[in-house]
């Protein structure tokens, strides 16, 4: 996983609440066995018209936001399906940071696992940042994870909270499977507990 330290980038405003992961990447694009290549289908239904041409009104199709790396939305971003294809599609498009007043749990978790920083801020602050973002390509936001601040185009700093454990994993780009494997002996000891004797195997069906 790539490290996330500081990002200075264009932010795209998408003032919608309850954006579900079916919106972020519809199910018919999940027939892939890869993590990459989903960016062209990000927000497919909103981004393209029925004839396949781009919807000029959708934010990511506007010239100012085609290279956005930050996405700002309203409440409950990423609700619905657990598909990790949603952060994969965001990442493949180039989005590395998402800002919203609240997130759905699984999506929030999946972002961290892919090096995308999800930042939770009060709704009025999100709306202020969206107004900044509406200034277009010249209005870049800086997200500094080390200091936990967002620097607005006018230089004002907005601080944000983040789970310290997850912050460290992003800053260092850690592989959490290697971390867990260090506890291999503890896992084995747990598996051998006598209180777990009743748990059957899934390997073969008894007749």
């Amino acid at each position, binding site marked *: 996983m790539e490290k996330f330290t500081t990002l200075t980038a264009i932010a795209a405003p998408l003032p919608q609440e309850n954006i579900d992961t079916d919106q972020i990447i519809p199910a018919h694009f999940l027939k892939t066995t890869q993590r990459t290549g989903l960016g062209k289908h990000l927000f497919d239904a909103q981004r393209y018209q029925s004839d396949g041409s781009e919807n000029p009104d959708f934010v990511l199709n506007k010239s100012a936001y085609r290279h956005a790396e930050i996405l700002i939305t309203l409440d409950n971003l990423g609700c619905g399906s657990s598909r990790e294809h949603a952060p994969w599609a965001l990442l493949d498009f180039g989005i590395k940071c998402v800002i919203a007043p609240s997130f759905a749990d699984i999506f929030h978790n999946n972002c961290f696992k892919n090096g995308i920083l999800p930042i939770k801020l009060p709704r009025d602050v999100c709306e202020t940042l969206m107004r900044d973002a509406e200034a277009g390509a010249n209005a870049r936001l800086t997200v500094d994870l080390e200091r936990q601040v967002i620097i607005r185009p006018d230089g004002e700093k907005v601080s944000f909270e983040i789970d310290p454990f997850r912050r460290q994993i992003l800053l260092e780009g850690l592989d959490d*499977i290697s971390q867990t494997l260090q506890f291999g002996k503890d896992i084995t000891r747990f598996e051998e507990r006598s209180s777990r004797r009743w748990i059957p195997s899934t390997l073969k069906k008894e007749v």
Partner: protein
Amino acid sequence: MQNPSSPRTLYDKVWDDHVIETFEDGTCLLYIDRHLLHEVTSPQAFDGLRAAHRQVRRPDATMAVADHNVPTTDRSLPIEDPKSRFQIETLEKNVKEFHVPYFALSSEDQGIVHVVGPEQGISLPGMTIVCGDSHTSTHGALGSLAFGIGTSEVEHVLATQTLQQKHAKNMRVNVEGEVRPGVTAKDIMLAIIGRLGTAGGTGHVIEYAGSAVRALDMAGRMTLCNMSIEAGARAGMIAPDETTFAYVQGRPFAPKGKEFEEAVAYWKTLSTDEGAVFDSEITLDAAEIQPSLTWGTSPEDVLPISGNVPRPEDFADPAKAERTRRALKYMGLEPGQPIAGTPVDVVFIGSCTNSRIEDLRAAAAIVKGHKVADSVRAMVVPGSGHVRKQAESEGLDKIFLDAGFEWREAGCSMCLGMNPDRLEPFQRCASTSNRNFEGRQGPNGRTHLCSPAMAAAAAITGTLCDVRKFQQEAA
């Protein structure tokens, strides 16, 4: 871990019994008893294992089945869509290479992973169960802690049989009293989601309790827990009781004999202690719940069938008003119109929410002696090969076929539009599935979530209608 002598909830108890290690900031290493896999969210996880030269730690605690992508037509024919076929072949290759038990497409054991797990006794009370699918919450009906995970976590569980997790908050939803005739588990759950909102359960595990919940059979309890995620909660749970034990006993992978007795003795200790504290709690009066359905594009957009759809101006919050305007436009509905009487094009009875034998019986009871309206395409998709076989042995297939329904093979089907069963643009569907998001059942498709009985009634009349009219007629 909390002090074990202080009163604990069902969730606390199952959690505590699976904590291997607690880290400084409260993150726990949680042991996972059962890992269920399907074809869509697992290929990248197996690729990750291969790249790191890792093995599956516990193939004997894992089970795989293909469900999302599978056609629900003749199983003897090859899968036409090359991408779907490749994804299923990839799963078959992966389970072989990593020695994971697999229910083949040709087998009667195949079905929707959340139907198959409980049906086979693979999912059991008191377990931690995960799957790369948000509707894993279904298995919580058994009194297990079951939740959906992303593909990175699928890889983590395959490699370590654990997850790094933080304890969620406790919420209790009580449904007290008796439901009125025509009101099912689906109506109860829609009422709960309507009350909590689609993010009301975020960060929580919901325990469903109260006399109306205790009175539900296991299929009804699964319908409740299944849609916990539609209220934002990753998991829903119901304390295991005699209904649960009777359901589990004798299932192929359930413990037998002395081990079953031992397990039941343990499962009986899992109920929430008197005096346990919930971070939040709501209570619904079962008698006030009516046959319900959704009108809009979020599962929280719930109405009783006697209700009228909202108007944007009903909402003071401009974002809510705008969302309502957009939902009405998408759904092709007029502000303030009655929902009953709206014509439907398609009726879908199936999905991990409502495809169990009890669901099919409830639908068949309405359909019997009637015909599907000429303007409607109606389909029944059983949740597994075993459900299908059971229904056929009861003659339910004949009732559906005689009425003009399609009787199909098991799979996720029209719940999610990634197999050939999809809505055409602007088609309106009465659906027993779980999500009415824009495009969920196919681009520009319009979904009204409802119970199997309500869906059956819609098929016959060709419109969204009150199922109680049929039930009075039958009485």
